[in-house]
C-alpha cells in the first residue's frame, strides 16, 4: 500500500510541473464552457425551469462538465495502449504490484492534481463570471466528494478496459476514440441527461456512463437528494465492481496472448 501511494504522489508531482499545458487547457475549457452556457441559456429563453434545471443550475452544469474533462480524461487516455505497442508493458508487468493497481495509482495522482488545477480553478473563475448553484448543506458536500471519488474510480476502470483492446489490435487507438466519444454522449457530458427525451434517459442509465458525470453533477446541483442519492452512490460502486471483474478477465486473456519482442 505504501508503494501505491508513493507512485500516486510521484504522478501528482509530475502533473504539477506542466504549467503551460495546464494554463492552456484551462483557457480552452473555459472558452468552450462559455459557448456551451450561451447555447443552453439561449435555449431556456424565457422559461425559468425545465425538467428540474433552472438557468442558474444549467450554467453551473456547463462549468462542472468542463471541470471534469481533465479529472476524468474525457477526451481519451491511451497510456496503457502505448505501453503494449512499444513493449514497455513488459517492465510494467514486472512491478511489485498488479498492472491494474500500477495504473490506478498512477492515475490517482494525476487525477487529484487535475481536480484542483483544472477543476476547482474552473469553478472559481466561473464564480467570478456567473451566479452559480452550490450543494445545499454539509451532507451534500460530503456526498459530492464520495461520488467524485467513485466517478474517478469508475472512469479509470473503464479507460483501462478500453485500453486492453491494444492486446488484440494495433489499431486500438481508433477503436478507443470511438468508445470514449460515444461515452461522452451517454454520460451527460454533451448535454444534461435531464433534458433528453425520457426514453433516451432510461437507455443512458442502463450504461455505466451517467455514473461518471451526470450523477456527480446532479448531486452538486441538489437535483439528486435523499434516499435516491444513496441508491445512486451504491450503483456507482456496483458498476466499479462489475467493470473491474470484466477487465480482470480480459486482461488475463490478453496477457496469455502477449508476445514481447526482445531488443
Amino acid at each position, binding site marked *: 500500500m505504501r508503494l501505491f501511494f508513493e507512485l500516486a504522489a510521484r504522478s501528482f508531482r509530475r502533473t504539477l510541473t506542466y504549467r503551460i*499545458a495546464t494554463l492552456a487547457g484551462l483557457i*480552452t475549457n473555459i472558452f468552450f464552457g462559455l459557448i456551451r452556457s450561451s447555447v443552453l441559456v*439561449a435555449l431556456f429563453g424565457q422559461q425559468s425551469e425545465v425538467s428540474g434545471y433552472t438557468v442558474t443550475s444549467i450554467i453551473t452544469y456547463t462549468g462542472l462538465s468542463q471541470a471534469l474533462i481533465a479529472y476524468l480524461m474525457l477526451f481519451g487516455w491511451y497510456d496503457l495502449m502505448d505501453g503494449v505497442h512499444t513493449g514497455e508493458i513488459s517492465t510494467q508487468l514486472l512491478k511489485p504490484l498488479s498492472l491494474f493497481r500500477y495504473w490506478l495509482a498512477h492515475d490517482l495522482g494525476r487525477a487529484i492534481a487535475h481536480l484542483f488545477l483544472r477543476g476547482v480553478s474552473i469553478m472559481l473563475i466561473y464564480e467570478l463570471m456567473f451566479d452559480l448553484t452550490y450543494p445545499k448543506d454539509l451532507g451534500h458536500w460530503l456526498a459530492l466528494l464520495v461520488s467524485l471519488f467513485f466517478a474517478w474510480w469508475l472512469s479509470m476502470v473503464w479507460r483501462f478496459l478500453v485500453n486492453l483492446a491494444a492486446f488484440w489490435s494495433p489499431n486500438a487507438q481508433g477503436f478507443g476514440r470511438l468508445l470514449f466519444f460515444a461515452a461522452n*454522449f451517454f454520460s451527460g457530458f454533451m*448535454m444534461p441527461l435531464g*433534458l433528453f427525451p425520457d426514453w433516451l434517459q432510461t437507455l443512458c442509465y442502463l450504461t455505466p456512463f451517467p455514473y461518471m458525470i451526470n450523477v456527480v453533477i446532479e448531486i452538486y446541483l441538489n437535483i439528486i437528494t435523499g434516499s435516491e442519492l444513496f441508491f445512486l452512490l451504491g450503483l456507482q460502486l456496483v458498476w466499479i465492481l462489475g467493470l473491474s471483474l470484466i477487465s480482470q478477465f480480459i486482461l488475463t486473456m490478453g496477457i496469455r496472448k502477449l508476445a514481447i519482442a526482445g531488443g
Partner: protein
Amino acid sequence: MGLYLKLVGVQIRSQMRYRSQFVLDTLALLLVTGLEYASLALVFERFKSIQGWSLAEVAFLYGLVEMAFGLTDMIFGGFDAPRFGRFIRQGSFDQMMLRPIGITLQVLGSDFNLKRFGKMAVGVVIFSYALSHLSITWTVAKLLYFPLVVLGLVLFFGGLFIIGATIIFWTVESTEVMNIFTYGGSFMMSYPMNIYETWLRNLFTFVVPAIFLNYYPALFFLGKPDPFNFPAFAPFLAPLAGLAVFLISLGFWRFGLKHYQSTGS
C-alpha cells in the same frame, strides 16, 4: 499543382493500405460530429427555439460550418497544430526545407487525410436536413453566392490553421489554446451569433471577423432580419473576410519562416 496532387495521391494510397484503421477513424469522426449535433437536436424537443431560430434554421448554419470545416481539415491538415508541432520537434520540417520545392506547398501536401471526409459527410447530412425542412426561395443570386460563402469559410478556417502552425515556430510545443480558434471557432460558429454576450460577439466581429462568414450569410439565405442593424452589404462580406484572414495568415507564416530556428533534433 501537379506536385501537390502527387503528394496527396501518395497519402491517399498509403491510407488505403490500412483499411481497418481508416474505417475506424472515419467512423469515430462521423460519430463525434454526429453525436454532438444529435445531442442538440434531442434537447431541442423541450424547447421551442433558440432565440428565434428553429432547429432547422440552426441546422442550416451548423451543417454549413461543419461541411466547410471538414473540407478545410482535409485540405489544410498539414497545418493542424498538434501534427505540425510533431513535425518541428522530430526535425521532419528541416528535411523539407532542404528540398528544392516550396516549403508551404510541402506542408500543405503533408497531411491530406481522407478520414476527415467523415466530418464533412455529417455536415452534408445536417445541411440536407435543414434544406428539406426549410422552404428557402433559391434565387439566382443565392445560388451563385452559396459556393462563395463555402470558399470564404474554407479560406477563413485555413487561415486559422496556418496561424496556429506558425505560432509553433516560437513555442515548439503545440499549445491547446490554438484549439480555441480552430475547433472552438467552428463550434461557436455553428450557432447563431445573437445568442452570445456582447463582448464575445464583438470579439468575433471586429477582431476575428467570424460573424460575416456564418451568421450574416445565413440571415441572407434564410431571409431573417438583422438584429444588429449592420449595413445592408454585411451578408456579402464572406468571401472578402475569408480572403483577408487567409492573406494575413500567409504573411504571418512567411514572417515565422524567416525567424525559424531548428530544434536541432
